[in-house]
């Protein structure tokens, strides 16, 4: 599988997709973080939880979304461009390809999540200072934010990969991820908070240490999100190894 893993990293490095995704992600992180920091009242921003929220919503959510897109595109891109055929001709034991893609997506997702939360932490902290709010966060909060955000993104990359394995269609996978994370989960949070704490996007937020309302602790949230990622990989595996390739 090491040969397949080297091949997967060479695939990532040899197109501009990853650059484009990173640039779009960082731009969105900046936008969301600054919008939060400058639209919330200073009273909201004065509390620790309000401050975590500014940093998390921009960093973790956007990082998880883009890591999910990256994981999905790792497979759907190959189906879209037809490179799945040469890929499977060279490695007909498809499990090796899926295993390599899982490892590559996990690591790349980790880096994306780290970049997103780091930018959100930096921009958010500066924005809070600019609004004259005393920053209540200690270094522990920042560590949980960065490590949690990176972990959540790496797990979301695997979820995206599993989704991509099942649907194969790139547009469907991208739209599905965006609609779920940005729309359906928000509806769940508003209408069924008891259920929403088990939703994978909300779990990602919980990992970064946003202890408000009904969220799980970061450790439990991480465990539950690992289960989601494992389920996505388990569902995606036969979808790739058993189904014909056109």
């Amino acid at each position: 599988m090491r040969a397949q893993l080297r091949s997967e990293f060479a695939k990532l490095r040899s197109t501009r997709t990853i650059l484009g995704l990173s640039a779009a992600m960082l731009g969105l992180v900046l936008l969301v973080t600054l919008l939060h920091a400058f639209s919330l009242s200073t009273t909201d921003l004065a509390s620790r939880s309000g401050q975590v929220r500014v940093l998390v919503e921009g960093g973790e959510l956007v990082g998880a979304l883009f890591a999910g897109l990256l994981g999905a595109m790792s497979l759907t891109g190959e189906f879209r461009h037809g490179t799945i055929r040469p890929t499977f001709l060279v490695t007909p034991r498809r499990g090796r390809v899926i295993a390599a893609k899982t490892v590559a997506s996990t690591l790349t997702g980790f880096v994306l999540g780290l970049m997103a939360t780091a930018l959100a932490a930096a921009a958010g902290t500066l924005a809070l200072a600019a609004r004259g709010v005393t920053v209540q966060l200690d270094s522990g909060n920042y560590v949980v934010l960065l490590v949690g955000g990176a972990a959540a993104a790496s797990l979301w990359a695997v979820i995206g990969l599993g989704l991509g394995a099942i649907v194969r269609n790139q547009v469907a996978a991208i739209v599905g991820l965006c609609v779920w994370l940005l729309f359906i989960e928000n509806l769940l949070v508003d209408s069924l908070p008891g259920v929403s704490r088990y939703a994978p996007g909300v779990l990602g937020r919980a990992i970064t240490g946003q202890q408000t309302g009904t969220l799980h602790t970061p450790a439990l949230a991480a465990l539950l999100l690992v289960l989601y990622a494992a389920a996505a990989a388990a569902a995606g595996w036969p979808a790739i190894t058993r189904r014909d390739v056109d």
Partner: protein
Amino acid sequence: MSSHAYGNNGPSSRGVVTAEPVVAVTSLTKRFGAFVAVDDLTFALEAGTVTGFLGPNGAGKTTTLRVLLGLAEPTAGRALVFGRPYQELEQPARLAGAVLESNDFHPGRSGRDHLRVLALAADIPPSRVDEVLDLVGLVAPAARQVKTYSLGMRQRLGLAAALLGEPELLVLDEPANGLDPAGVHWLRTFLRSFADGGGTVLVASHALAEVAQTVDRVLIIDGGRLVASTSLEELAGRGQTLEDAYLQLTTEAAS
């Protein structure tokens, strides 16, 4: 295209000499729902031959090739490459190379990177990438993104990928499509020398005139069934051209 190098790239030096046919398709059937794409198809390919795989659109040629190369599972029967199902070959790229579609590339990836990605997965040394680029005449545009390539250049890049592992079997679907006359001539010479060196070629095509100049044998299928398996010599002995035989067999089978 460079014509000087092909003589060194045949499989002659490794010649696997076995009684086993290189390709053995036995009672192969592939159904999609109620539609029977390949119907009880049986054929074998011997080493050192170029075989044309002919048939009308929808006859089941491409489906057969996909099953043979492990991209699709047979409904019944089996397709073996060097005695084993393709999926069970330990280093398939070193035994078989294939071009199934003319555009299986990421448009934003360079030709060289496309080959590098595949070479890494197949544990083939990177120096081989430059060799096959030279072989198919793509050294100059190798660093350019594939989206700038013409159809003929894409065909040559696909062939370069198929040749990465110095395989003993080549499976090509319409390889001459989009090639200029010099490219067609080069391909014909290359396939001939590949087979003369002990290699085996299966080439699906509609270009009968080109096939007649290139192949030793033809397999003609229609409606998923084999309607002819013959050598060009046998056809000539009966005073038939390939086109005569093809039109007679496939229209008969269709009506």
